[in-house]
């Protein structure tokens, strides 16, 4: 009941500040850049003057799976940045402006407050992701060839876990950091550190969430879910739950007026 009140307020707020419009638009844009630009690469090269006489330049034939992988790469850099910048003030902003004082002197459960924010951000991000990947899938199928709908659903689900982890990390830092900019910095630093660790200790961290895109690609290639993908999904879910619980604990501990 109270949770729904908090959740609805977030949804309405994101509607009034137009996040429900521009976040999906950005995701759609980011997701269709790769299928379209790769398909039209020969024409693009021609229109900017073409290849020099006699030069042989083979443009590799891309498979649908490769195009999807490129799109996921696009979303993992710019898309993640958009998510972090959009949600860096979720709680820190309310703390900074002081409006949080009026909310938390009401008998509001801290758990509800955090999870409602988290869920509202997720519903926005997942909507954007579903629209973006569906658009990407449409262009990929039209321009590059077959990719079954079930594959699209799998991509959305597994890649969605990575995006969910990003949102959860941002909420985690929001629970105790007061400055939105610092929240963004810490979130980016955390994701970069995770990526670095995964690269350096690749052999031991096969199931690191940063490998989700790679495992999705492998599964698309052999046309069935790999054990690695499923294991990575579980590891990611475990991390999401840990960060969320951590956020609730730290938020409770932090005195609000300091």
């Amino acid at each position, binding site marked *: 009941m109270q949770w729904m009140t908090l959740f609805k307020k977030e949804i309405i707020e994101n509607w009034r500040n137009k996040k429900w419009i521009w976040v999906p638009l950005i995701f759609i844009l980011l997701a269709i850049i790769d299928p379209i630009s790769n398909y039209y690469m020969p024409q693009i090269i021609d229109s900017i003057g073409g290849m020099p006489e006699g030069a042989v330049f083979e443009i590799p034939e891309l498979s649908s799976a490769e195009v999807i992988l490129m799109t996921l790469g696009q979303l993992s850099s710019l898309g993640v940045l958009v998510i972090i910048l959009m949600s860096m003030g979720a709680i820190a902003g309310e703390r900074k402006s002081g409006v949080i*004082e*009026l909310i938390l*002197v009401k*008998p509001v459960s801290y758990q509800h407050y955090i999870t409602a924010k988290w869920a509202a951000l997720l519903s926005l991000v997942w909507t954007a992701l579903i629209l973006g990947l569906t658009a990407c899938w449409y262009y990929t199928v039209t321009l590059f060839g077959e990719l079954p709908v079930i594959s699209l659903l799998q991509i959305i689900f597994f890649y969605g876990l990575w995006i969910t982890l990003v949102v959860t990390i941002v909420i985690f830092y929001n629970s105790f950091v007061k400055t939105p900019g610092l929240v963004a910095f810490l979130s980016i630093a955390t994701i970069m550190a995770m990526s670095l660790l995964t690269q350096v200790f690749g052999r031991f961290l096969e199931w690191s969430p940063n490998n989700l895109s790679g495992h999705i690609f492998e599964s698309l290639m052999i046309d069935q879910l790999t054990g690695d993908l499923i294991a990575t999904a579980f590891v990611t879910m475990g991390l999401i739950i840990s960060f969320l619980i951590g956020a609730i604990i730290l938020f409770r501990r932090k*005195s*609000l*007026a300091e």
Partner: protein
Amino acid sequence: MALLSVTNLSKKYDSNFAVKNVSFEFQPGKCIALIGPNGAGKTTILHILAGLLRPTSGNVKMSEINGNSDIRSFIGYLPQYPVFYTWMTGSEFLIYSGQLAHLSKKEAMARANELLERVGIADAGNKPIAKYSGGMKQRLGIAQAIIHNPKLLILDEPVSSLDPIGRREVLTLMEELKNEMTILFSTHILTDADEISDALLLLHQGEIVEAGSINILREKYQTATIELSFSHNTRFYQDKILQLSSVDNGYTEHDSIHVSASDISLAREEILKAAADEKWPITSFTLHRASLEDMFMKAVKK
């Protein structure tokens, strides 16, 4: 039974005490003013009572609370500078606050309308809060604080930032609310405290230096003085007055003599008698009652 009792409350930042060993309690139905200069720890105490800050030591008990119910359900709080979601309308914010305090949507809506009317911003109920003036925000702030009919209403400097008209309106509103709930408010403006509160807590450097009902405190700090002026020979008459047995002390400032005495009515009698007998050239004679300010200065100096 006391509505609220606070025992040995302290709040320490690094090695400084913002609040030090504060204890007090008060009965339901009173209006209590927390008075002190800026930085005395007023806001810190109110933050602790409202559950926004954890004390370093000590505890707060409310008689209404049984078992594990949330103390915040019984408290309404208005911060010194209330900030709202400016994209909401006043009415939306009130409904939202009401629902957070576990009112149903219907109850919250009814209560929001009633309160908008009551605090005098019914016309602006459907305007976004971004367009509200300072006074309107303060009134909306009071409305959100009482939306769930709290037993204790905590107001942090409710009138300090308002213009004279807004100030008067808020004071009138507080006067009305006194009949429905216990009010604890902080202020550094002593006349406001004098006007509407039943009891005072005088705070200085994080400690309570004096507490009690206004009348009792007045008696305790009875510092009534007599101020006299003479057309000439002020010095000469000052010496004469100081010789009277009932007068404790006296000094001259701006050509008038200020006389203090433990029994001020006796002193008045003696002075007036001497003046009549000896035909003193008195041009003015005033009896000053202790103001809250004098009381405060005296309590702080102690």
